[in-house]
């Protein structure tokens, strides 16, 4: 026998299970959160324990503008996703492109900050515990932003080639989840590094 049927089958049985993309992405986010948590714990644990070198208070400047950029990109991607669900492809593409621009701006800001820290403040990953934990944590986040931007750009390219429509909105929503996650991580990293850590 290859079909197993129940003797008491309710033909009006509604069988709706979650979308596998969302579940998969949620799992990935959980796993990534665990990795970030370990780096945050290391950062907090080593606060004030550096034996030498510049302290956070001496060299860190709070990147308010670039943070606003990144957090706004969460808003724009959310709007983009909604527009696509309603079939407004052009608006979706514009908002999507703005999201990428904001994300790229954030990365640029990080690059500028690192340049200043390395060449003006003399803080590298090997300088002291602060340097090690700072660059690792912020760098891990920046890596995730980069990967996200690559994915978003791919979608932009497909969108420009007119391949992204309403039918893809579930996948776009899944990708947006990742982007929201990256932003949420930044909220945590920002708090830990620039507020608590100083």
């Amino acid at each position, binding site marked *: *026998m*290859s079909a197993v049927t*129940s003797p008491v*089958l309710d033909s009006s049985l509604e*069988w709706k299970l979650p979308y596998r993309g969302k579940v998969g992405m949620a*799992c990935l986010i959980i796993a990534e959160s*665990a990795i970030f948590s*370990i780096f945050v714990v*290391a950062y907090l644990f080593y606060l004030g324990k550096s034996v030498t070198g510049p302290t956070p208070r001496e060299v860190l400047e709070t990147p308010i503008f670039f943070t606003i950029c990144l957090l706004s990109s969460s808003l724009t991607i959310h709007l983009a996703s909604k527009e696509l669900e309603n079939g407004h492809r052009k608006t979706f593409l514009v908002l999507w492109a703005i999201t990428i621009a904001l994300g790229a701006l954030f990365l640029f800001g990080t690059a500028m900050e690192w340049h200043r820290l390395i060449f003006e403040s003399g803080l590298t990953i090997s300088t002291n515990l602060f340097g090690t934990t700072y660059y690792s944590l912020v760098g891990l986040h920046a890596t995730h932003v980069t990967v996200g931007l690559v994915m978003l750009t791919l979608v932009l390219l497909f969108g420009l080639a007119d391949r992204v429509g309403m039918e893809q909105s579930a996948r776009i929503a899944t990708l947006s989840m990742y982007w929201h996650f990256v932003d949420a991580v930044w909220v945590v990293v920002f708090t830990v590094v620039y507020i608590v850590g100083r």
Partner: protein
Amino acid sequence: MSSDAMAIPSATNAARPWVEVLHEWVTTVDHKRLGILYIVYALLFLVVGGVEATIIRIQLIRPHNDFVSPQVFNRMFTMHGTTMIFFVAMPVLFGFANYLVPLMIGARDMAFPRLNAFSFWLTALGGVLLYFSFLGGNGLYGAGNAPDVGWWAYAPLAAKAFSPGPSSEYWTISLLVSGFGSIGTAINLIATILCLRCPGMTLNRMPLLAWLNLVMSGMVLITITPLSAAQIMLLIDRYLGGHFFDTQAGGSAAIWMHFFWIFGHPEVYVLIIPCFAFMSEIIPVFSRKPIFGYPVMVGATVCIAFVSLSVWAHHMFTIGMNSYANSFFVITTMCVGIPTGIKIFNWLGTMWGGRISFKTPMLFSVAFLFQFLIAGLTGIMLSSAPFDWQLSLSYFVVAHFHYVIVGGILFALFAAFYYWYPKMTGRMLNETLGKLHFWLFLLGFHLTFDVMHIPGILGMPRRIYTYEPRPGWETLNWIVTIGAFIQGIAILVFVANLIYSYFKGPEAGNDPWDAWTLEWSVSSPPPNYNFASIPVVASRRPLWDLKHPEDPDSRYE
């Protein structure tokens, strides 16, 4: 052209060119084939890890032995541990999960078949990379050879200062790579179980194997990742001049231990929970009764998953934490024993009042119950911190965890092999060889691991390539080594059975064990697409309902 997942060699099948068969296997995204690839891969490494264990045991058969040098010995125990955990236990359990979960929930495949294949090949690459270390280059004083820092790679021993050369990198990177493979499979299992169950199969009606693999996968997401994070930190220390574990720069050796054991303890539950799943499927069938207390079994497992996240520092009772911290981990560790014990009682309750038939799967299952009980009890001993101050880092602990891993996990795996091999290949494993395998392995296991507790009590620490001729140590070590050889022979019998039965075993048919879950409703081996039409279920034992229409489970659930 056969559309079977695995063609049984028979006269009616046209011979296909071997290149085609090879290509199919290498490019497959079918969960059944990937499952078998995982299992075969794990079996190969089981033999390799066993050889490493044998080398260790030969070296320790008498004091001041010189079978291998200390450098080689230290590589052996490092590689043995790393291999067995990451390239035997994890793959074989993921292999069984891969094969069985879609079938048991009435699905056609996993949620992400390509991710499935990718995860397998990542894991496979990890193993190859780890073993490349033997060949990769000796460097100065063998510094490039296989890793020799123990499978925990404690800092600062694993730091550049004390482990120059790339040997530690082989450990770190191979585990990072295979770790990502594990995370991929875990994501896949969760998505499959949550999104692809057949109509009628609510979470409350899902086979326990699916439930437990769901819990295990959830654990993997937050268990493997701390290790990955710690390994990235180690790489930063070793290559970018970081100071995470650099005690000269104010870094902490203890924080590596915390990060490692935050992975390491839940990891052992990751390994044992799928084995609980096997027991929960096999014991009912051979007792001819449903599992006793299904909701409690689910609840206990979820409980174990959560509590196990809070016990990690019982591996660190000796590092000098204060008495309050130590006491905290004492109570959490003892607590995790409660739901675990409940599970043992529930399996007993399943057997109670049943009609138990002692085919090979059940023999291994009963042995599992006996041995897992003992392992749990020695665990309770270790959870009592002062007692642990004597027992930890000694051969008592080595005996304890081998009792869990060999006496528990491996025995449960053997049961699973004998139970599901017919489904995977269409042939029954030989019962006589199976019983021989069982009794030989049981003898060897107890000879080795019962006796091994004693040298620990008599003061013998672990990870030593030789020992002083203290009274009793030599005889005890000698017995332990003999037991290892007997286990080796038993494994050979097992492998012979696997190969022989593939060609000569009696045909199994759909349902050789008169079982009740969906995988037994399809042919052995199942067709490529699993089910001609997706089943609809109304109870936890859909096949029981079909076989006993006068008394279906659906009436009572």
